């Protein structure tokens, strides 16, 4: 592998890894507070990717999608939380997992009803369709923009979680939501806000990913599998774990796609198995 190619693949890996981070960050936030794994998370990403496709079709511009899709998915997440999930908080974890799984199935079917079962391409925005020169190397501008925008989003999420009052409540709630409730904070509202935030993050991941990989109705299962791998590798409950896991998995996938294209996806899971063998708690895990 030449230096040019290696650098290219590592940068690609960082780009994919940042999208994986956004996906896993939403899952981790929801788990941290509510202690259940949201199986509809991949479907949130799917819905956002298709909204991006639709917005690009209507307006010819992806920029609107960057605003509309995360907001719409956050609203969808809140509706789902209000209508269905809040009835399951007293039930066993299995019930919550199965309900979110059923919601994922339903959303997938709705997407197929609306857009058909076949995959579609989403064009890269014309402003970012070119290449940029990084010293002596060339690189696609859109991929660089993905890395940059995901980094900005990561920074914002980190600031929200670490520096704002909502973040403080979130972190306290992940220790004991009962205690937070006793302190006079409306826990139900916090749950709603967390679900909205998690949905918005999955939505942003969907928007950024759509031009890279196109859209197809079954991308939700794949995304969910990868988000789980990222969380197992990085450790559940921390943003830094999601970031470390996302980057590691993205870079492994990207480099392997040059060395052994048909086995690149396989190696993601092999990397996960190795991490469990060596460090069962994950790289930076709390749980």
């Amino acid at each position, binding site marked *: 592998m030449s230096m040019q190619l290696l650098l290219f693949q590592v940068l690609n890996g960082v780009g994919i890894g940042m999208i994986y981070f956004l996906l896993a960050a939403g899952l981790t936030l929801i788990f941290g507070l509510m202690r259940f794994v949201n199986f509809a998370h991949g479907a949130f990403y799917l819905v956002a990717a298709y909204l991006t496709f639709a917005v690009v079709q209507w307006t010819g511009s992806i920029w609107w999608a960057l605003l509309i899709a995360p907001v719409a998915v956050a609203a969808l997440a809140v509706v789902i939380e209000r209508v269905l999930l809040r009835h399951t908080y007293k039930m066993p974890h299995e019930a919550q997992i199965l309900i979110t799984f059923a919601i994922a199935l339903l959303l997938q079917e709705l997407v197929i009803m609306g857009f058909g079962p076949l995959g579609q391409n989403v064009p890269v925005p014309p402003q970012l369709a070119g290449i940029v020169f990084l010293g002596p190397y060339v690189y696609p501008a859109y991929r660089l923009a993905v890395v940059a925008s995901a980094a900005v989003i990561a920074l914002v999420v980190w600031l929200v979680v670490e520096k704002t009052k909502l973040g403080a409540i979130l972190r306290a709630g992940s220790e004991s939501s009962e205690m937070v409730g006793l302190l006079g904070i409306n826990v139900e509202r916090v749950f709603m806000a967390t679900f909205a935030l998690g949905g918005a993050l999955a939505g942003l991941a969907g928007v950024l990913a759509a031009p890279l990989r196109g859209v197809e109705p079954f991308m939700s*299962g794949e995304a969910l599998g990868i988000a789980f791998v990222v969380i197992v590798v990085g450790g559940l409950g921390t943003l830094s774990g999601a970031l470390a896991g996302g980057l590691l998995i993205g870079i492994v996938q990207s480099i392997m796609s040059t060395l052994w294209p048909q086995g690149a996806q396989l190696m993601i899971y092999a990397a996960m198995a190795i991490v469990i063998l060596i460090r069962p708690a994950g790289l930076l895990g709390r749980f």
Partner: protein
Amino acid sequence: MSEIRFPDVATLLVVTVVAIMPVLMPMTLATSIVIFATATLSVTLLLGSAGLLSFGQGLYLGIGSYTTGILLRDHGFGLMPTLVIATLAGALSAGILALLIVRRRGIYFVMLTLAFAQMGYFAVLAAKDVTGGENGLTGLPRSFAVGGMTIASPLSFYLLTAVGFLLAFLLVQRLNASPFGSVLISIRENESRSEAMGYDVKMFKVAVIAVAGGIAAFSGALHAVFLGFVPPSDIELEISQRILVMAIIGGVGSPAGAIAGSIFYIVVSEALSELWARWMALIALALIAIVLFLPGGLWSVGQRIAMARKGRSSGG
């Protein structure tokens, strides 16, 4: 509620259903039902007895299918040795992966089962030379000689798969009633306490995961034999989800729930798929309704009726 000893009403009912199904519906439909009921038993055993929710039993179903395809087509094995080896292959691979999976507890279990199921699918795609990649394995033999009998007609395939299901059903029922099953229940109810009582919780989990993997692989082997080829969909995530949905709809409180769920899912999908291609949306809604309002699944309706009748007869 006292445990009713074998042979109980549930067993009798299941045997009756298996016996009359081929009269009520096309033979191929009945065969699919018993094959998927067998697969569903692996979820029922894990979730119902040990409280382990698996999103990845399709991995072992696929391992059973592919082992069967390779042994029958490329190595000229007979039917019975193939079924045995395929089952053992599923149990062994489940046991090995379980050694990794039980290193993480609780919520990680669910995520790891799904992740390893995905891994199996991508492994099949990567090992194209052996597995046929996206084309699967075609050209399996369509007739088998077992102990002087020939298995080639639709009825003989049904008998083979129905006997296979009943064996798996009795195995799960016997396991639940055994001391091993009692330990699984104690792990389900309180893992830390079971550990404090001196049980090697991890090894019990590995053992039950291996048995469930063997059952799923056995159903996969029957599926490949029945179809005459190995479709790659046998190892996709969708098949793991399908058998999980069957298990939840039927109910995991009793192994009989497996056949109830399989009948419901396959009959509904067969009836609706002609009318509406997106029938899966209705299955999703049914799943939500069952989780919210009928946590014991369809089978528990029968149990409730039986309990109510018993209560009435003993009370008055």
